[in-house]
């Protein structure tokens, strides 16, 4: 059942601009791949290709031996879920939390209608939110809580791969830490494979097993976390790491 994800020779163009150039990448099962790079390097485009939100001009995305094509089945879509940077725009402001999570549960037929409320409660508990949250609306929560709700919705359909695109960038540092801890915990409990995108190298170091570096649409380095943060293979990786402001000791 557990299959690793392969990105094979993927190229994406927007008009005349090449956003991704022949990307090859493997996401081994139950590991976290940290994807770093500067703005415009193609990190989010790659995430969207994997999630099936963008069809590449060339290349393909494979889950095990199955190709994830242009038209994905409901089952294929269920397998890969995504958490976005801005929880405000990924939660419908006119729906209660129960509707938001319940809709995902019913659409992917995870539980019966009669079980929806119970399952929502469980999910909220998993992301450390009170069950009173069920009948409230997104605006009644803080940014960090809203991101937890977005995470609860993503894991509600029992995906095998979770893509998190800058999930903590809009949050305060103290909240960021708790969201990262939550994601690590869920990853091991639910045996998830995670693709974690961030421009913040501190965050990548905290969560990843492997680090992939993108620059101008190309994948320039893939190294283990230990190697990347002490002996990066490329000059660019070195340049990125030396630009991070560090605390005086």
């Amino acid at each position, binding site marked *: 059942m557990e299959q690793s994800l392969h990105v094979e020779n993927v190229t994406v163009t927007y008009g005349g601009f090449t956003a991704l150039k022949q990307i090859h990448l493997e996401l081994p099962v139950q590991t976290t791949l940290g994807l770093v790079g*500067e*703005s415009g390097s193609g990190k989010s485009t790659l995430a969207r290709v994997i999630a099936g939100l963008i069809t590449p001009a060339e290349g393909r995305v494979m889950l095990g031996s199955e190709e994830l094509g242009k038209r994905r089945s409901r089952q294929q879509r269920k397998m890969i879920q995504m958490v976005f940077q801005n929880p405000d725009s990924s939660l419908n402001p006119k729906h209660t939390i129960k509707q938001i999570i319940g809709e995902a549960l019913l659409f992917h037929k995870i539980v019966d209608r009669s079980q929806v409320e119970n399952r929502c409660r469980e999910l909220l508990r998993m992301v450390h939110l009170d069950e009173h949250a069920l009948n409230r609306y997104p605006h009644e929560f803080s940014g960090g809580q809203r991101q937890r709700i977005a995470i609860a919705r993503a894991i509600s359909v029992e995906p095998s791969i979770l893509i998190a695109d800058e999930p903590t960038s809009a949050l*305060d*540092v*103290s909240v*960021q*830490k708790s969201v990262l801890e939550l994601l690590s915990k869920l990853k091991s409990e639910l045996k998830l494979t995670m693709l974690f995108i961030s*421009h*913040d*190298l*501190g*965050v990548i*170091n*905290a969560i990843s097993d492997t680090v992939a570096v993108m620059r101008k649409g190309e994948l320039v380095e893939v190294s283990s976390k*230990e190697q990347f*943060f*002490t*002996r*990066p293979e490329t000059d660019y990786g*070195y*340049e*990125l*790491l*030396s*630009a*991070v*402001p*560090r*605390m*005086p000791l």
Partner: protein
Amino acid sequence: MKAVDPILKVENLSLTTIDHKPLVNDVSLSVGSGESLGLVGESGSGKSLTLRSILGLLPSSIRQAGGKITANGKCAMVFQDPIGSLDPLSPIVSQLAEVVYYNQNVSRKAARTIAVDLLQMLGLPESLKHKDRYPRQLSGGQCQRVVIAMALARKPDILLCDEPTTALDVTVQKQILDTITNLQKELGFAMVFVTHNLAVASAMCGRLCVMKEGRIVEQGDTMQVVGHSKDPYTRMLIDAVLPLPSLERRAE
């Protein structure tokens, strides 16, 4: 300690909304000539409001309920969003020349020359001299340099920075921070630097004020605050800075 004759003094500043909800409470700080002060805290701590009240740029829904601000010199400000702080309809050399013209009492033609020189000093391409460009034709980092040039065109004694590198990539952030540090050495202005990033604040500033919910919870020399913080909130902020392993020096 050092600020014997402060160039900027904020005494017991209190800010409230128009319906009297307190936002900033009893904030006092001072900056000596040529000194840098970092204001750090999370969102909603009142750091940006404190900075804005120095310039008198408070939003219309916020009132100064008490306290006094004395600035013995010209202030200029650099905002967080570089593209949003430039006029999209005006090419950048013209935009900057306008600021130079009104602040430095020179002719239009001289203002343009000063503008081009200033932009070059900040590392923008020389080609601007012949071909002016619109803000959208520049990157975020380049726009932020233009904004800094504009602030410097006022020949400020105090430079106020509101998260000037938060919207930028790390490599660009480093270039901009280095630029600000070098300019400060060269021109000797004092600086108030607002950021949520404690590592950036410690790199840029000799003294730090930590703010939480509209109050200053701790202030002092940077090494003192970072190394021997007394306040639990400061400790929490320090602990929240995610550590990186140290990079091995490359054999080259």
